[in-house]
């Protein structure tokens, strides 16, 4: 036991004291927020083609089409009656394109043709299609004798509120979107962390083997202790990073709140504190659950909304506050931690065995595939099945199978999972973990002292027995 601790201490301290670790711990959340922000900015702001395009329009009744507002960035002109010259103009670049609408009622499928000298983007195609469809609908309404105002009143909107009837007879406001978001964020965290820290364990085992340190170590430590010390040490590094991120996230929210408290913006201090607390309640929950960059960004956004303090923003904050406070935090957190640790231990024992078996980095690939496949598969299931139908049979099945349960179960957790299912799934995970650690340690024990030729699956099997 003492030996496991000595190994654990070395693994933990050398990593935590490492400059890269310290920098990345502080930088990673900011990078993640920055990355998301940049993606969203690029997607919304600069993704569109902002050239102004002059396009000929020909229709059975061109005045009708042209009398309507053209789509943004388009200037519409009546097409010359002679189609050859229209095409020639397009070809010579006098106009960007020629939109020929053959059927005024637009009932047939190929009702319009767009001629251009360059292949239009999907967005451009959709914009034009939507515009024609819109105009056609309006014409149809007009034909039915409806005026513009009446048409607008026909467009009804609906917002579906969801309330959950809990066991105690309470009816609580819930938000499926919020739950999906939290579940997915947590699953993503587990997925990434298992990969990152699992391969850390693998590289550590490989380093000891290739640097020939391992023989000295196993002369005083059992290979099993060495492997466990290593796995636990790296796990502690991961948890340290979690804690650092939570502290960082909470600190960030406090910082931003403090900033807006000082600026005042004409609201009462009480209101400001209230909003700050609301923002933090949400944030705290998210932060504890995930400590993710997403949490930081969300907390940041919420505080920013608070800072703006328009009544709309406050309504929105209030709208989120109830579902947020109704989330089963304890369950989510417990499931996340238990399944993260369980999943990490399970996979990292595989990674340790691989690291001990190979002689160089390039030999890793052949063994990695079967190990990472279930992990990737679990993530795909989490993204699709579990998010769409968290209580469905498929989601239930994969949240029981130990290789996928760490990811799939956390997606289901915010939607509420019966205790019996959680207990069964976690029990299976622990059993598999114990079995796999034992099997891996058998490979590890021989792998670390086997040099020379590249090991094969057959060798691993031999070592297992």
């Amino acid at each position, binding site marked *: 036991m003492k030996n496991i601790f000595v190994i654990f201490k070395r693994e933990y301290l*050398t990593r935590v004291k490492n400059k890269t670790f310290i920098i990345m711990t502080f930088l990673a959340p900011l990078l993640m927020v920055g990355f998301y922000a940049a993606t969203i900015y690029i997607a919304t702001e600069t993704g569109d083609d902002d050239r102004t395009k002059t396009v000929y329009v020909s229709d059975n009744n061109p005045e009708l089409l042209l009398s309507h507002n053209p789509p943004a960035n388009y200037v519409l002109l009546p097409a010359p009656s002679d189609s050859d010259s229209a095409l020639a103009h397009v070809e010579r670049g006098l106009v960007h394109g020629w939109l020929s609408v053959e059927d005024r009622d637009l009932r047939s499928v190929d009702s319009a043709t767009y001629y251009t000298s360059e292949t239009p983007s999907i967005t451009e195609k959709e914009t034009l299609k939507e515009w024609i469809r819109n105009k056609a609908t309006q014409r149809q309404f007009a034909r039915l004798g409806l005026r513009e105002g009446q048409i607008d009143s026909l467009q009804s909107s609906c917002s579906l509120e969801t309330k959950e009837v809990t066991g105690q007879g309470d009816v609580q406001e819930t938000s499926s979107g919020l739950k999906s978001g939290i579940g997915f964020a947590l699953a993503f965290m587990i997925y990434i962390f298992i990969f990152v820290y699992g391969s850390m364990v693998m590289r550590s085992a490989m380093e000891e083997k290739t640097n*020939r340190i391992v023989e000295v170590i196993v002369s005083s430590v059992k290979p099993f202790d060495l492997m466990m010390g290593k796995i636990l040490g790296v796990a502690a590094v991961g948890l340290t990073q979690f804690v650092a991120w939570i502290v960082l996230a909470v600190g960030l929210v406090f910082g931003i709140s403090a900033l807006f408290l000082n600026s005042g913006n004409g609201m009462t201090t009480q209101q400001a504190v209230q909003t700050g607390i609301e923002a933090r309640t949400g944030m705290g929950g998210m932060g504890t659950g995930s400590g993710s960059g997403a949490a930081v960004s969300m907390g940041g956004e919420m505080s920013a909304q608070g800072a703006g303090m328009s009544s709309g923003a406050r309504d929105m904050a209030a709208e989120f506050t109830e579902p947020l406070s109704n989330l089963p935090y304890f369950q989510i957190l417990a499931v996340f931690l238990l399944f993260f640790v369980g999943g990490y231990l399970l996979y990292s024992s595989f990674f340790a065995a691989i690291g001990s078996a190979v002689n160089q980095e390039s030999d890793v690939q052949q063994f990695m595939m079967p190990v990472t496949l279930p992990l990737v598969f679990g993530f795909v299931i989490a993204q699709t099945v579990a998010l769409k139908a968290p209580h469905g049979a498929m989601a239930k099945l994969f949240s029981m199978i130990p290789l996928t349960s760490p990811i799939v179960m956390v997606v289901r957790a915010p939607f509420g999972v019966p205790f019996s299912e959680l207990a069964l799934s976690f029990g299976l995970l622990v059993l598999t973990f114990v079995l796999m650690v034992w099997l891996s340690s058998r490979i590890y024990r021989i792998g670390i002292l086997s040099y020379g030729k590249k090991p094969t699956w057959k060798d691993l099997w031999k070592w297992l027995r």
Partner: protein
Amino acid sequence: MSKVIEAIKVCKTFGEQRVSKNIDLAVEQGSIYGLLGPNGAGKTTLIRMLSTITQPDSGEILFKGEALKESHAHQMGYMPEERGLYKKMTVADQLLFFAELRGLSTKDAKASVKHWLQRLDMMEWARKKVEEISKGMAQKVQFVSCVLHNPQLLILDEPFSGFDPVNADLIKDLIIELKNQGTSIIFSTHRMDNVESLCDHLAIIHQGEKVLDGGVSEIRRKYATGVYEVGFYQAVEWGGGMSATGESTLISEQQQSDGKVVYRFQTSDSFSPDQLLKLAMGKGNLVHFSEHVPSIHEIFVDTVSRPAEPIAGATIAGETIASKPSPMS
């Protein structure tokens, strides 16, 4: 003297290959035991069993009279042939880690690390990472890492491989110092350079079997085959003196670079070295007369170049085989 470690009929098989066959050995306290053998003879396998890394398939290993168990590892130091250090760790942290691994408390470990770093004039390197220090320096750190905990048994597998001559001498001095302090040392090598000067006792392992075992001087004496060397300032004529006895044979004649000539004779029961000396004294200016005792190197080459079989003078399973030594070439 008491035995620190003892192996009794130890066997180990890997797959089809029998790597250790009924090996017996005993290392006395405060002695240096040389384990010789060509590459692939099974030395490392034997050493791994002695240092608790692997277990024998059959046979027994005793550490100070007790059946060997993992906790005994704390009383052993082991420097494997394939060795290395954590490149990204500082010298001091690294040594501290190894000391704690060998069971020292953090406080004792720190004291020991300080003692050894001072002893080897390396204090200023303590905070440097291993990748920042010279190779020679790293070799010293490597050696220190296995003696930090004052082991009672130090196992060194090819300790001088990869060491430069200056460091090799330094390590040699340290080994002798440790021995004088009562540490027992097992010293495995396929090179004979240091065996005669360092070892008290040696065993030759060949194809997984121990083919020879004994005290170094004892073995050399046992391998003495009655060959004597007689040297003169210049070549002499032996003439009828030799043939007259008919009992001693001139086996070689060698002219040295300084002009001296050395003759080698095989003596026998009926023609003693005394007779040879008397005969030689009348032949010319005698400068040298000595018994030719084979070097360990010669014994080693002779032993491993023949198929493994019981060798004269070798103790196998505790019984001395009483057969005549084979003539040395």
